[in-house]
């Protein structure tokens, strides 16, 4: 029973390695192997759901044991990860044109799954760090698969995540020092001065893995550079699951975050800013995948805001939103992949009227878009309502920002759907057909689950979310349509306004694509958008510029030192040498007079 936990790590890892090493011709065998591994992982996760298990093996010593712990929370995350991996594997069967890329992708995907499983199950901070850092390698590899420009993006992602992982490492060291143990389930620290620092460092690691601001800037770049299934698997689902899972464990288990703490306010501010700024950027994007990637950042804000409220309903909402987000955002990315595969582009200016050519894709997109916009009764609506509820209890401003984010989300998805699937069909897309079955099935399943988790929201809430919060939390039931009717009314009103706004501006500007341009070109915002376009707000670019500046500064100092050596000292020596050389003119009279003068000086000094 206990040893089966290791299979979560070993099974995908070995399957990935074998799939990679299989000879070139064995495509069907490889596909079958990868599929079987994903199915097996999923089945084990289902089988082990709702069970408890701990396994501890000796590893590095000094308190660093190979310790895995399966409880309700980790079993839930593992189940979700296995589910999404299985769907992406099915989706990828037909996605890649080049077989060598597919090989690499399967290997990276399964190894990532193994590492995520390891990080989720790890009950030891060092073991967690081991798996966590391993993900950095597969992340780099997956982005770098995209080609030449992707390599730069991969480096960017590597550096950003590397820096935040460094913070995580420092946080783990500090936590281990303060708590006196590295076993996660034994850590229980009050938030003091030093432990607040540890908390913050760990949170930086967690939220940057989830893709929150200001550690987000690689995601939009990767959206256009990396292969699409990567976006659907890592930034959209697995990394969110892992990052938010760890954030929740930090806030719930390792430290007791209470609503009075300033750290709670800090988390909420991070969440609110992420929601608003990322969705503002999403609104003006002209690329399918880029727009989605900004939403992938923005939605993290709701999760962080929800968990940051430190209220049970907020935490439940944040976790539920994490699950919902993974569902609809994967689905959206998969539709983007289908559109890209069938039409060859994701540029919104070249797309239009695809609803007749790809009706099933359009249906999946519609469901997912309604979910992300928070339209009742889709799943995104319920989780957002829970977050709104908690945010409003903590402060009106957080609530207003969250609702404004919802408005902008709805507006940008109206624009996106309208531009891609409705409107006039393009002449060059006459031959476009519906996506292949292996790509439609995952999209369809995800869309159905979105609807199902919306209408029957008590199922995921009761089975997955509430047990995590334990008996100590007193949660108002949001199962079924219930709760605060004012909030629901406001949400419905905001969504209606978004719809009306969209149609008014479509009419005024002439096309769906430009429906949000008045916001883009609004007097003050235009300047900020311009700056954002020039990457003035990208912490990575700012960091690079800062480092360049520092480097330049030190380079000047170095030149100065070099000047002292090569011009001042060497030149000075050269000048002295030439003067001395000229003094030695070769006349013995001069030499003799020097000697006499020397003798006189000696006499003078002796008898002075």
């Amino acid at each position: 029973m206990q040893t089966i936990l290791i299979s979560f790590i070993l099974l995908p890892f070995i399957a990935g390695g074998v799939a990679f090493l299989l000879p070139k011709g064995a495509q069907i065998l490889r596909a079958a192997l990868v599929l079987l591994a994903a199915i097996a992982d999923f089945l084990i996760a289902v089988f082990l759901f709702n069970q408890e298990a701990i396994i501890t093996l000796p590893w590095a010593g000094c308190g660093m044991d190979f310790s895995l712990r399966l409880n309700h929370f980790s079993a839930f995350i593992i189940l979700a990860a296995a589910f999404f991996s299985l769907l992406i594997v099915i989706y990828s069967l037909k996605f890649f044109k080049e077989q060598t890329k597919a090989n690499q992708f399967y290997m990276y995907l399964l190894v990532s799954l193994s590492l995520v499983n390891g990080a989720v199950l790890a009950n030891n901070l060092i073991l967690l760090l081991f798996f966590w850092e391993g993900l950095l390698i597969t992340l780099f590899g997956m982005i770098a698969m995209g080609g030449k420009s992707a390599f730069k993006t991969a480096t960017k992602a590597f550096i950003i995540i590397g820096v935040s992982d460094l913070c995580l490492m420092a946080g783990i060291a500090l936590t281990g020092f303060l708590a006196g143990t590295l076993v996660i389930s034994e850590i229980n620290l009050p938030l003091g001065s030093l432990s607040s620092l540890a908390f913050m460092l760990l949170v930086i690691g967690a939220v940057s893995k989830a893709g929150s601001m200001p550690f987000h800037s690689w995601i939009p770049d990767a959206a256009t550079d990396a292969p699409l299934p990567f976006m659907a698997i890592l930034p959209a689902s697995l990394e969110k699951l892992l990052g938010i899972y760890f954030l929740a464990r930090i806030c719930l288990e390792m430290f007791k975050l209470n609503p009075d703490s300033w750290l709670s306010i800090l988390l909420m501010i991070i969440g609110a800013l992420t929601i608003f700024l990322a969705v503002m950027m999403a609104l003006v994007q002209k690329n399918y995948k880029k727009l989605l990637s900004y939403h992938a950042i923005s939605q993290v804000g709701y999760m962080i805001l929800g968990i940051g409220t430190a209220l049970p309903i907020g935490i439940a909402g944040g976790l539920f939103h994490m699950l919902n987000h993974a569902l609809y955002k994967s689905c959206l990315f998969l539709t983007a992949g289908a559109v890209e595969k069938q039409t060859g582009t994701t540029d919104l200016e070249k797309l239009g009227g695809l609803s007749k050519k790809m009706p099933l894709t359009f249906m999946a997109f519609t469901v997912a878009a309604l979910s992300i916009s928070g339209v009742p009764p889709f799943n995104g609506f319920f989780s957002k309502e829970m977050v709104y509820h908690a945010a409003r209890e903590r402060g009106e401003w957080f609530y207003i920002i969250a609702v404004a984010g919802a408005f902008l989300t709805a507006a940008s998805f109206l624009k996106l759907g309208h531009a891609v699937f409705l409107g006039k069909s393009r002449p060059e897309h006459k031959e476009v057909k519906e996506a292949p079955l292996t790509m439609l099935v995952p999209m369809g399943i995800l869309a159905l689950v979105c609807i199902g988790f919306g209408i029957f929201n008590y199922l995921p809430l009761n089975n997955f979310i509430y047990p995590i919060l334990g008996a100590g939390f007193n949660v108002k039931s949001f199962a079924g349509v219930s709760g605060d009717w004012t909030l629901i009314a406001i949400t419905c009103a905001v969504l209606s306004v978004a719809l009306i706004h969209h149609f008014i501006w479509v009419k005024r500007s002439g096309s769906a694509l430009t429906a949000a341009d008045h916001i883009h070109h609004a007097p003050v915002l235009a300047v900020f958008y311009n700056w954002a376009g020039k990457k003035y707000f990208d912490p990575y670019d700012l960091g690079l510029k800062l480092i360049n500046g520092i480097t330049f500064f030190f380079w000047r100092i170095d030149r100065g030192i070099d000047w002292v050596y090569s011009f001042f000292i060497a030149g000075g020596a050269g000048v002295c040498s030439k003067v001395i050389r000229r003094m030695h003119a070769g006349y013995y009279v001069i030499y003799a007079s020097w000697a006499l003068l020397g003798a006189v000086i000696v006499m003078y000094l002796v008898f002075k």
Partner: protein
Amino acid sequence: MLSLFILIPLLLLFILNLPVKFIRQGAFGLVGLLLSVQILAALLHSLFPWSAFPEILGSFFIFSLAVDNLTLVMLLTIGTVALVSLIVAASTIGQERLRFYFVNLLLICVIGMNAIVLVRDIFSLYVFIEIVSVSSFILIALERNKSAIEGTFKYLMLSAMATVFILSGIACFLLAAGDLSFVSIHSAFYDPAASFILKVAASLFLCGLFIKAGVAPFHGWVMDAYLASPASVSVLLAGVATKISGVYVLLRLFGSVFIVNAPLQNIILFAGAFSIVLGALAALTQDDLKRMLAYSSISQIGYIILALGCATPLAFAGAVFHFFNHAIFKSLLFVNAAALEKRFGSTDMNKLAGQGYKMPVTGITSLMGVLSTAGIPPLSGFWSKLIIILALFSSGRFVYAGIALLASVLTLAYFLVFQRRIFFCKSELQEPALENPGKISRALGFSEISLAIITVVTGAVFVFMPGNWIMPLKGIFW
């Protein structure tokens, strides 16, 4: 018994000049044998019962001869460098007549130097200094061309000044002490009544010996004399002749005979540091290899003078050790210069630039000499400079220690420029037209390699040296 160091060469000098043809033809071999015996005698000094036999010369003259470790080191150095000079002469001097002159003059020079290090009275010292000087004059002018005569003339003029200083000094000592042996002069320094005249005598001696040693600003003759002389004579002059008649006498007199007062000591220190810096700076922009080596020689003598001014037993030990090392590596570099001159017909570095790669043995041995001069561990020059700088530090003269350290950088600078220009790059230009084409002889290569080996081995076995050679030196000085 010790007088054999003087009498045997003297006897050989007579034999060589007998009108017998085969003796003349074998002159180089005979002198070489003699010098080898001298090296052996100095090395195996403990086997010789020096005092068991009566001194032959001592019964005729008032010479008082004595041997101590300082003398032994000097005898060893004289033998080695003179032998190298002889080998170089054998393969560079062509004319039979000049070869014979050279052997005789070398022998006279060796007699003088041996006597300088053995005698223990100040007048005999002066006489032998003059013997060395006179033989040097003729050796420099051996080829009788214009530049040789010019170099000799400058040396002659400044030596004359030195003679005036030294003779006046001797007169003063005679006045004050009544006797010229080291012992009585030393005891005269304890007499307060004679202090003024002794100060005059000591400072006169200092000036005279500075000229002989070529310490700045008394160094005017050094460059032209070294440059103008034939290759073998440069080796002899730079390696031992001027060092024995100048530096050794300074070490002996100011280290163990005179009692040096503070102003004099400061003058010596300053002159040493000044020589180091001036020599090194001047060497930076020289075009002629031998002239550069001459400036380098001035700079290296500065270290010995600096140690003399420091006036602690450790500093003296370092000075003597540096004396020996300098004789070896400076001879090595002059032999290299001789090899280059023989191969390419010039010592002008502009003409030699980029040609040295054709002479790998010379290049490598030159590198050893260069690194040793600059004081790169673990070569011999490093240890002696280290002892000198340590002695300066431990006596609290930090500024001088700093100058001595930094001047090593300058030394390395000019030598690496030389090494790179000549040996470490290839010139596209054709080899310059050779005046006396021909490969360097095996003997030249042998002496290069031997000297390089001595430099390396002295550095490598340094740990065994202090107990046997260096520390006993401390006992000689006060």
